[in-house]
């Protein structure tokens, strides 16, 4: 029999094997660990959300606030005939195109803004002016200027991606440690080499943050982009369903949009982890943990 009195501080014999086993097999511990895993995987969050949704829906008529089952049943026809899926593809194409254009334009502009004091002083008021004007405010103008086709929608999404990417990229360039640039210069690098071999790799984490935030921004503008002059798309579904009092379609649209963004971000984070880890890209989550 093990003595239960510890011989000296730090003596671990007090934790004899049976104790550990008993603790491990304790139903309460098993439940705790199980819940912890569910929480970590995000399952618990979804469950809680579903429960809150269902309870809230009990108090209202389905046309005002449909529950989960009512939403699914009500949306049966657009799910089954493939409309919803088609709308997902169409909206995704618009979001990704606008977002990509926003990146292609925003990253170089951000690099210039960060690199040159003159460009920064010239452009900063402009950026700080327009970043407070939401994309939806430009809806009518863009349709007038760019027509009712895809261009106006893509440009709208590009607009809402652009500034956030510029600001993050420029902030990265400005915050770069000057020792790195001095070191490169005294190692014989010229200005062009410093730009491509030091500045750009050094700010990949900030660019990546801009890319992720830009994606969020792009998704939030899809409804605006599809509000007028669209015949298809998730934004169109959400906006038009109000005319038919199809609250369940609005709900399925919201949920779908949320999942599209959710999985897009998951995909981006996956890319970040696999390809950009050596640049110090953090992909653990929004809160840096």
């Amino acid at each position, binding site marked *: 029999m093990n003595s239960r009195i510890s011989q000296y501080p730090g003596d671990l014999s007090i934790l004899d094997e049976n104790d550990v086993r008993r603790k491990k097999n304790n139903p309460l511990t098993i439940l705790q660990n199980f819940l912890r895993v569910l929480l970590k995987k995000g399952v618990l969050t979804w469950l809680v959300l579903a429960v809150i949704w269902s309870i809230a829906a009990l108090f209202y008529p389905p046309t005002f606030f449909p529950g989960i089952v009512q939403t699914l049943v009500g949306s049966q026809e657009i799910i089954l005939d493939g409309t919803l899926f088609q709308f997902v593809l169409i909206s995704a194409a618009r979001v990704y195109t606008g977002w990509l254009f926003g990146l292609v334009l925003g990253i170089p502009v951000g690099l210039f803004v960060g690199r040159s004091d003159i460009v920064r002083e010239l452009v900063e008021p402009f950026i700080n002016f327009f970043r407070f004007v939401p994309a939806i405010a430009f809806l009518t103008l863009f349709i007038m200027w760019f027509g009712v086709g895809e261009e106006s929608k893509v440009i709208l999404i590009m607009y809402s991606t652009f500034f956030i990417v510029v600001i993050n990229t420029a902030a990265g360039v400005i915050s770069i440690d000057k*020792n790195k640039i001095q070191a490169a210069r005294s190692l014989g690098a*010229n200005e062009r080499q410093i730009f491509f*071999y*030091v500045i750009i790799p050094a700010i990949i984490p900030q660019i990546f943050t801009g890319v992720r935030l830009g994606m969020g921004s792009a998704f939030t503008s899809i409804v605006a982009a599809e509000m007028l002059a669209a015949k298809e798309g998730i934004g169109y579904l959400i906006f038009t369903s109000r005319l038919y009092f199809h609250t369940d379609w609005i709900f399925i649209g919201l949920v779908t949009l949320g999942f599209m963004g959710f999985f897009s971000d998951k995909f981006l984070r996956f890319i970040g982890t696999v390809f950009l880890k050596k640049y110090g890209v953090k992909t653990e989550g929004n809160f840096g943990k």
Partner: protein
Amino acid sequence: MGNAVIKIEHLSKVYDNDLNKKRTRPEPVLWDINLEIEKGEFHILLGQSGCGKSTLLNIIAGFLNKTNGRISVKGKEVSKPGQDRGVVFQNADSAIFPWLTVRQNVEFGLKMQGITKEKRHSISEKYVQLVGLGVHTEKYPSELSGGMKQRVQLARILANDSEILIMDEPFGALDAQTRRVMQQELIRIWQKTKKTIIFVTHDIQEAVLLGQKISIIASAPKVGIFKTYSIDFPYPRNEMDNAFRQQYLEILGHFDFGRGI
């Protein structure tokens, strides 16, 4: 003194934003500095923090412009950073490139000069071995300790064939044991490569342990070089030797009773 690699004459430095203040008289950070450093010399710049020793170093490195006087390296006026003067920064994390492996960091300068991959490899291999990072070549800086990161900085400028090594309190952020090891390593590498080293520190013991010449920089208001000592006793030096202790105490005396060195 024909073979001085670095020649500094009547060098003064006033920071620009001090010059712009109209009412007060601008305070010079450096005033009338005269210094000659010979080829292969281990020269220490010793001074309290804020005395301008880093400013002097930055001017030699070409990162800062002087206000007055002359400074030349191998007879050529210094105006910008150059490959001939390699810099080891105090904060290795801020100076080495975390997205490159140890080998790629060491090869950075060579790559910028367009040297072929095979040649780069053989050069980097040699210096990675010399600084004792042989088994860590494919690691990223985040996997290295503070002392190893300083070795990377050292290998990087050695591989780049810099004649002059400019070191700004390179061991200041290391723990005492690692610092000791690094001091011995630096002596070993210096004796092997015969480079000229300018080494800034505020640590008198480190100064006497490493330097052939120790220039004491006085802080305000008497900014400038107060005195230059020649330390003649051989390496490896021992803090317990009588000569060492006498030298240490003599320099310490300037700081204790010197009134504003």
